[in-house]
């Protein structure tokens, strides 16, 4: 086997030399644009892209139709008469149970949950990561390992003990409680992210600061923080999309009047009473998906970096 392939290789090499020597055209062989290979590659990729884009298209199209048109036409046809009424209705009038003030309530609830959760979880995790990378002590790595293993444990296993703990402290069902829950479950992946990043920074910086007499918090605030903007952006992306998209914690740890947007959306669309208004439902779905989508399209490559690190959480 090996001999044959060596022979082949030598043959190929000789051929290559021969063509080099002959004074023919130089440079790469120009590729045909419409080769069979290209048609196949772009064909498959194009079809796949269609499959991925289809639901987004259907959402947009449906949300712009009036209900009579939805009932008559098919879901793929573009709207004959564009109307923004479903959007208005989804935002301000759609009903969940007795409340008929639309998704706006869920949106603001989600914002109120999102902002403190993102800030607290990233603050705690970045300090932890920094301590783990630069100020180890006996046992710190052990607890870190437990934390990482914990990332794989299904939430359902830990959720009830957490309910009891929060109830004992007296913050079960409150916003503070949910912020703590998001901080806890965001901790493994974020701490890992920050630990690895800080460990990758040149050690000399840390040592120089130590020699100059800087302490734990000074080094963190003056040296590490200014140097780690990119990783903070990645962490923010992970947390914003993750917390916005959360459903389970929202259901378990909040009360109906503070339900986040995802929970409220599900209640609106899957409510059994009343006539189903598909266009309003799709507008509501798009509204809920808008925040992570905007984050995604704005952040681009950083998002990819974030999910490669954050996928453990999902």
């Amino acid at each position: 086997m090996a001999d044959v392939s060596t022979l082949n290789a030598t043959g190929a090499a000789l051929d290559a030399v021969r063509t080099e020597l002959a004074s023919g055209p130089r440079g790469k062989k120009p590729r045909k644009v419409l080769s069979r290979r290209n048609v196949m590659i772009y064909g498959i990729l194009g079809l796949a892209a269609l499959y991925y884009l289809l639901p987004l298209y259907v959402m947009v199209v449906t949300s712009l139709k009036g209900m009579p048109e939805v009932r008559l036409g098919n879901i793929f046809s573009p709207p004959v008469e564009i109307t923004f009424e479903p959007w208005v209705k989804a935002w301000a009038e759609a009903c969940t149970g007795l409340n008929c003030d639309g998704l706006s309530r869920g949106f603001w609830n989600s914002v109120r949950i999102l902002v403190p959760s993102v800030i607290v979880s990233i603050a705690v995790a970045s300090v932890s990561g920094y301590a783990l990378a630069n100020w180890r002590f006996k046992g710190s790595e052990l607890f870190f390992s437990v934390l990482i293993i914990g990332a794989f444990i299904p939430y359902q296993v830990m959720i009830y003990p957490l309910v009891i703990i929060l109830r004992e402290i007296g913050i079960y069902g409150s916003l503070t409680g949910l912020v703590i829950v998001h901080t806890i479950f965001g901790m493994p992946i974020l701490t890992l992210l920050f630990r690895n990043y800080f460990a990758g920074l040149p050690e000399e910086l840390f040592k120089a600061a130590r020699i100059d007499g800087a302490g734990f918090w000074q080094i963190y605030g003056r040296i590490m923080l200014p140097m780690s903007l990119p990783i903070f952006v990645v962490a923010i992306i992970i947390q914003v999309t993750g917390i916005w998209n959360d459903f389970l914690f929202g259901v378990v740890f909040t009360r109906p009047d503070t339900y986040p947007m995802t929970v409220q959306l599900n209640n609106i669309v899957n409510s059994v009473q009343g006539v189903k208004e598909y266009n309003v439902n799709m507008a509501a779905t798009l509204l809920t998906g808008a925040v992570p989508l905007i984050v995604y399209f704005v952040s681009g490559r950083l998002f990819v970096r974030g999910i490669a690190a954050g996928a453990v959480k999902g």
Partner: protein
Amino acid sequence: MPHPMPQQSGVSKPMPKSSGRPNQLFRNLNSKIALTPMILVAAVVFFGGTIWTVIYSFTNSRLLPRASFVGLDQYERLWASSRWIISIQNLMIYGILSLIFSLVVGFVLAALMDQKIRFESAFRTIFLYPFALSFIVTGLVWQWILNPEFGVQGIVRSLGWTSFTFDPLYNPDIVIYGILIAGLWQGTGLVMCLMLAGLRGIDEDIWKASRVDGIPMWRTYIFVVIPMMRPVFITTLVLIGSGIVKLYDLVVAQTSGGPGNASEVPAKYVYDYMFQAQNLGQGFAASTMMLLTVAIVIVPWAYLEFGGKKRG
């Protein structure tokens, strides 16, 4: 990784060992304070919480947790419940198919993207955007597309093929495949991205060598490149695997477990028994089974990955 600790303590305070280090607890105090939240989370919530749930799965707690132990009763009841059996079957079907499909589709897309194509970033953006959306949004969109009256089935019928039937969300036998379609739509972009990163990590010389040897491209992929990408595949497998066990929101949004209980999954069983049926014991037993499932996937992997390194 920097290990600055030992040197520093050596530089700053070269005290003799015999003096007993009176301030052992207070050494590095700031770091200990900073890590208190992490230690609490790891020890109390992750470790303590898990142990607590496992212990209480052996009790007959109903509305409130009670420490009256009944042995394996809850587990017997669990495995006698048809709803749990359906949940497990659904999870198996969904899990195996979603592993196979997302790996195959993800790899094929990544391999195509790796052919120095144009518009690569546009394609990547398109394939990955569903991953930014929540399972709730995903489930609701696909509920609409698979709606038998207005969705795919309705359209094919209106084209003249009136006997065409495709109503996965209303047919108990195939409902889990309807959920699978949505799940794959949401998740394959991520697999594609991981695979693409893996492919980019393959040395260009490998490709040159195989081209010189005249090996067809598909054979190079199967016999050379894929074995070289083993770590990427394992990481992806663990990621998808641990995500599958958590499957919950998608089912809630798309079918709410129906029709009947044909699309129930274990995570939903746990939630319903803990927070709605007020049968905590069942919820704890079911969640312990989920933990066991994850352990079966994770422990061998962790052993291979981290146990192996220690041995050298």
